């Protein structure tokens, strides 16, 4: 993987601690002076009172891209304002990749009552390998250097600086980067210097600032010096493509074509396959034909090649050869894309790797051209006049090419092509990119006993079928049933299963059919001695998104695309005394299209709900209207009725009624 975006001082300062660390001989921390090329920034400590637990005075990043290797100098000055602040900032945590980066610490100083005290002590630096990415099945050889600041008190001013020398050698050039200029907290001053041999293009994501440009001795200097940077929005649940903070992006790449050329070279490897494998593919083709063989190849790459990435140096961007992948039977996204290319080539399909961003989706469309935009590779090919975008890391995809779920990364850089722009990713098959679910719930309700029998049949297609297939493949019968009943128990607390769920995986059409059977006790709620029954649509509800924070400046991310049909049948053994309006409801807005049709025939209700998402986000200015729409649909998802058992005058009914009166008498007098 490419190195993650630099989240700046917050990540650096408030990093999570790992339990054990082993400093290895080969990995070292150097202590040295600040490099000469670094501009000295004099930060004036403002006298005004600050709120919060820590006040950040300076964030100073200076990048020297004019040298053979990239050198990045960091300086941070901050001040804990109270005990909480002290706790938050007393640990300094630095990350680097020893395989190609050197970590040089210059300074750790504490200023107390106007006097400076150096705390720099090499012995106190703990080095350990990062385990964060292992959890994501990525072996990256990232290391952390931890320094614990002792005896820190409120209003101490902490200063530290360090330089990372080096960059991933896979980049033939390194004059591109992306730097945050804003965080969730205010900062008194941000200073950025970029030194480059070539002119760079740059842009700001949200707010423009002035950039001072100079040229001296063949080096271009770009300086940004901004004061009193307000906190950005402390919000979440915004779409992946949205950047809430101001970011400075620069690149010396002239076009996407240049980036393409760089990346294409990385994929210029040996695509040959082992002989036995060639035979296997040829046999498939002979037996199943070309189209089905494409599916078989995809399925093989996705499911038979275990996903595991080694992000060591060049491996972060350089794929391995198909032979090596097949030998080891594992690979990351690059490897899987290369293998797919090789295998498909054998049957005459010209597949190409395509770079995408899994983290930012369509957010890369306005980026400056640079390798920085991408963190993932998929494969692209055309067949019978249709374009296909295959993610080799996806699993559990089944069915023919027209049935497989389509994971939409929105924009891609297709390698080995002449495209000057990013390519818009689309699928010819409209159903494939949606979470597609058809569900039928059938209730037999006995109001007299206040029980219900619930039988459900759900048909999941495309991406949703694949997601369930993965879920079912991981679980045992017991755990699956337990999960399914847990889902319903949040709506009907007294639910029990009377049969195990029946799961039918119709792989040929990439469809999973799930049948469930339940008994529900205390189905209706007793509202002032009346049994009120509520039928709710968890199917639609589970895709609706309600933000935690309503007053906001960032857009809200929505589940999209989603297509749902939910049919509910309820048969009531008794008298329906009242029910919600049976009128057909239609709710249509920018975000979704919903309809409810309800009919009543004798003692039976048939309700059909249709939901189709229309957008993946809500503008912050539309939140209020969106919440109204959400309330409206939530209301429409609940169908209530009041029912009782059939007219009853037997002795038990009489006794029940007397008991009811007695219980009323026993309640304490309100007056």
């Amino acid at each position, binding site marked *: 993987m490419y190195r993650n975006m630099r989240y700046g001082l917050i990540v650096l300062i408030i990093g999570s601690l790992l339990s054990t660390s082993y400093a290895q001989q080969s990995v070292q921390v150097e202590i040295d002076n600040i490099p000469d090329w670094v501009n000295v920034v004099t930060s004036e400590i403002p006298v005004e009172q600050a709120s919060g637990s820590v006040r950040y005075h300076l964030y100073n990043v200076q990048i020297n891209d004019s040298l053979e290797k990239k050198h990045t100098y960091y300086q941070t000055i901050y001040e804990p304002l109270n005990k909480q602040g002290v706790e938050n900032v007393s640990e300094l945590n630095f990350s680097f990749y020893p395989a190609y980066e050197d970590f040089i610490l210059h300074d750790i100083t504490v200023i107390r009552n106007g006097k400076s005290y150096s705390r720099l002590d090499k012995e106190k630096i703990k080095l350990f390998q990062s385990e964060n990415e292992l959890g994501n099945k990525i072996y990256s050889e990232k290391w952390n250097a931890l320094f614990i600041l002792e005896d820190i008190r409120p209003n101490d001013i902490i200063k530290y600086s360090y330089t990372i020398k080096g960059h991933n050698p896979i980049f033939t050039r390194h004059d591109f980067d992306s730097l945050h200029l804003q965080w969730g907290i205010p900062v008194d001053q941000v200073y950025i210097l970029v030194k480059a041999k070539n002119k760079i293009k740059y842009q700001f994501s949200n707010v423009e600032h002035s950039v001072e440009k100079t040229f001296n001795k063949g080096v271009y200097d770009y300086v940004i010096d901004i004061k009193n940077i307000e906190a950005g929005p402390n919000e979440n649940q915004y779409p992946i493509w949205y950047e809430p903070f101001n970011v400075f992006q620069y690149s010396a790449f002239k076009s996407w074509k240049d980036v393409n050329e760089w990346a294409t070279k990385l994929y210029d490897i040996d695509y040959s396959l082992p002989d036995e494998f060639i035979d296997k593919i040829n046999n498939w083709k002979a037996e199943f034909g070309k189209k089905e063989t494409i599916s078989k190849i995809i399925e093989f790459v996705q499911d038979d090649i275990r996903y595991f990435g080694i992000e060591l140096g060049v491996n972060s961007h350089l794929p391995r050869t198909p032979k090596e992948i097949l030998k080891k039977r594992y690979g990351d996204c690059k490897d899987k894309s290369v293998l797919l290319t090789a295998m498909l080539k054998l049957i005459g399909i010209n597949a190409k790797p395509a770079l995408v961003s899994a983290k930012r989706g369509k957010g890369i469309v306005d980026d400056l051209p640079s390798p920085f935009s991408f963190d993932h590779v998929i494969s692209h090919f055309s067949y019978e006049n249709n374009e296909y975008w295959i993610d080799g890391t996806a699993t559990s995809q089944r069915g023919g090419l027209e049935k497989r779920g389509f994971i939409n990364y929105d924009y891609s850089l297709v390698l080995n092509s002449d495209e000057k722009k990013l390519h818009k990713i689309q699928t010819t098959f409209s159903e494939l990119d949606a979470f597609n679910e058809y569900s039928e719930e059938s209730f037999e309700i006995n109001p007299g006993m206040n029980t219900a029998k619930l039988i459900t049949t759900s048909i999941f297609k495309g991406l949703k079928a694949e997601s369930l297939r993965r879920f079912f493949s991981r679980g045992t019968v017991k755990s699956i049933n337990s999960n399914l009943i847990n889902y319903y128990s949040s709506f009907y607390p007294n639910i029990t299963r009377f049969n195990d769920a029946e799961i039918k995986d119709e792989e040929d059409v990439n469809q999973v059919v799930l049948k469930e059977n339940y008994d529900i006790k205390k189905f209706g709620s007793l509202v002032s*001695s009346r049994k009120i029954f509520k039928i709710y649509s968890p199917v639609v509800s589970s895709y609706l998104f309600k933000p935690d924070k309503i007053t906001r400046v960032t857009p809200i991310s929505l589940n999209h695309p989603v297509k749902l049909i939910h049919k509910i049948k309820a048969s009531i053994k008794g008298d329906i005394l*009242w029910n919600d309006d049976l009128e057909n409801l239609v709710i249509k807005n920018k975000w979704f299209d919903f309809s409810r049709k309800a009919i009543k025939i004798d003692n039976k209700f048939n309700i059909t709900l249709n939901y189709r998402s229309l957008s993946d986000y809500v503008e912050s200015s539309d939140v209020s209207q969106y919440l109204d729409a959400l309330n409206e649909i939530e209301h429409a998802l609940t169908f209530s009725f009041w029912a009782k058992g059939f007219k009853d005058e037997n002795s038990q009914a*009489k006794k029940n009624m007397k008991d009811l009166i007695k219980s009323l008498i026993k309640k304490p007098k309100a007056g």
Partner: protein
Amino acid sequence: MKYIIILISLISLFGCAGVQRSQFDYTDVKLNSIVKTIKETPDKISYLKFINAYLTSSQIKNTKFANDEYKKIASSIKMGTMNCEQYDWAKLTSLNIVSIPAHLLAIECFEKIGDLKQKKEHENLVQFLVTGILGEHSGDNYYDAYEISTWGDAEDLLEYAGLEVIDSYFEFKANRSGMYRIYITKEMNSNVERKIYFDNQRFSHAFLDIQFPFSGLGDHMYKSIILSLKESDYAAQLAHAQILHEGEKYKEAEKAYLAAISQGSKKANIELGKLCLEGHASSFSKTECAQLFVTASELGLEQAKVYLAYMAYAGIGFDEDKSMGADVMNSINTTMKPGEPDYQIALLFNSSKYSEIDEKQTRFFLDRAIKKEYPGALFYLLLSDLTVEGALATEEKQETVIKNMTKSADLGYIPAKYALVKYKFEMDEDKSEALKLLKELADANLPAALYDLGKIYQYGQYNTEKDELKAFLKYQQAAIKWDADAQLKLGFMIGKGQVAEKDYALSYGWYSLCARVGNLDCITNLGYISASGHGVEQDYQRALELYQLASDNGLSRATYNLAILYEHGRGVDKDLNKALEYFQKAAGGGSSLAKNSLGLFSLKGKVEKKDYKKALKYFTEAASANNKYGYYNLGRIYQNGWGVNVDLDKAYEFYQKASALGHYASSFRLAEAYEQGLVFTKNNLEAIKYYQLAVKQGDSEAYPKMLRLCKIEKSC
């Protein structure tokens, strides 16, 4: 004089000059000018003047839009998406000037902005509106309800008064001519419950473009208001259910009750419970009725427990269980007044609606209620005791009745107070105390008291100065509170042009209103208007139907009118036998006119052969009831010697009596007698006097004769 009266009438009655409202143009000019004055000097404008201007403005048609707009702005200000400076407050508040929340929001904003002048103006308006609505009323009864425009206004007022609405329902009056809304309220953190009556009938009439208060004639309160509100307003749904219930459409009523319950009506549980107890519920057995009362009780309506206790005591739905009945009664909390549950259960035992009448239980619970000094029970007992023969036979018994009446009245029970007033008028030699009490009740807007006071003014009774204008206004006040007698009076006075300008259409409207509640005089008068064609198209057929209806219900006047139609073949084939039959029936009911007609039938031998003796008997009977025609005909009998010896002295004595009662032919005969010197000594001046009287009484022939004599005598 009449012109002035009509002006007053227009102001107070929202224009009683016709049943159509076409004279209103819904312009806002007048209202805007009044509002401007209120903002600056609120004391200069009467609330009545303001509300009349409001009700003729375009604003009444836009209340929903105004409310939506207010909500939108209020929400924007609350959310902070709009600030006070950004909105045109004059525009918002003048969308519906009576909407208090909009003024309050404006006040809040003007305070924030620091515009104290505009703040004060809106404060003046709020003060004016609240005082106008609440000022002269108690809200304790329909006839003293607070008058508002929309129900939203009522709810806003209750909220500002710190009252929580527990439930709400509609109450109809006068066969759905009148409609009131009752809110059962509770003070926050208190157990004191209060029923508050609101009245928006003038607003509703204005909104529906119908002359107030005649919407009932087209059943518009139900058809145009309740039916259109019922899907969104549980109280309207409940009213709809109750109307279906009364109309014995039980299945539909049950459905509507259930809908009202689901919409949030608590009282609907009790009403459905009643339908269930009647055995008319299709989904509930009698046993299950209890569930509905339990629900109502759980929702806070303690009254429901009375029904549960009744079921237990009377063994309805399950076996009799007196102990449980007693427990239920004991569990009723203090939201009901002491003795009220006992009184209500007594009424249930005294009704055959759900079970056979149980006099013993009735008496038992009445006594319990009386012990707890529940005034309604005292009065009820007093009334039921009065129905027993010899109830007032001894002085001691009379004293007991008076004592109980006085006690009930002292406890504030209005019917008892009114009964006491009536008693005092009957019994006291000095009526001043009775008059004082009657005025108090009239001041409290009790319709019957207003009517009685109107009568006192009309006839100048009990040393009160006769004042027809005051009488008219009191009748008017009572009439708009659905007092049928007052409506009859108004119909009559307006029809005759008495005090107010003659207006047959309006007269017809008032008669129609009181006819809707079965007032036989009103029905007969409607028949009379149809027969005479005054203000309406002459329609004998309709007259016949109306007379027949009133006659069948025992009104002799109607029977007499019916006989006349048969006699002359109007609206029906001429049938003298039938006419005779109806005259006899009316005469039997005491109609002196009918007796006179029977005399004429005998005199002329219209059905049977001539019978002067019979004629003399009938005319004598009619005359003895002070009937002018009876006197006149007796005069004719003695003048002509039909079955008697000619006796001119006697004859002219009868003519004089008839003349004095307004009979012009008698006056004419007396004039002729004086002119010609028959019976009396010739006296032209006396003759002129009687001719003049005859003219005044409607005899056109007397006029030239009078002129000729005047010329001779040169004295007219």
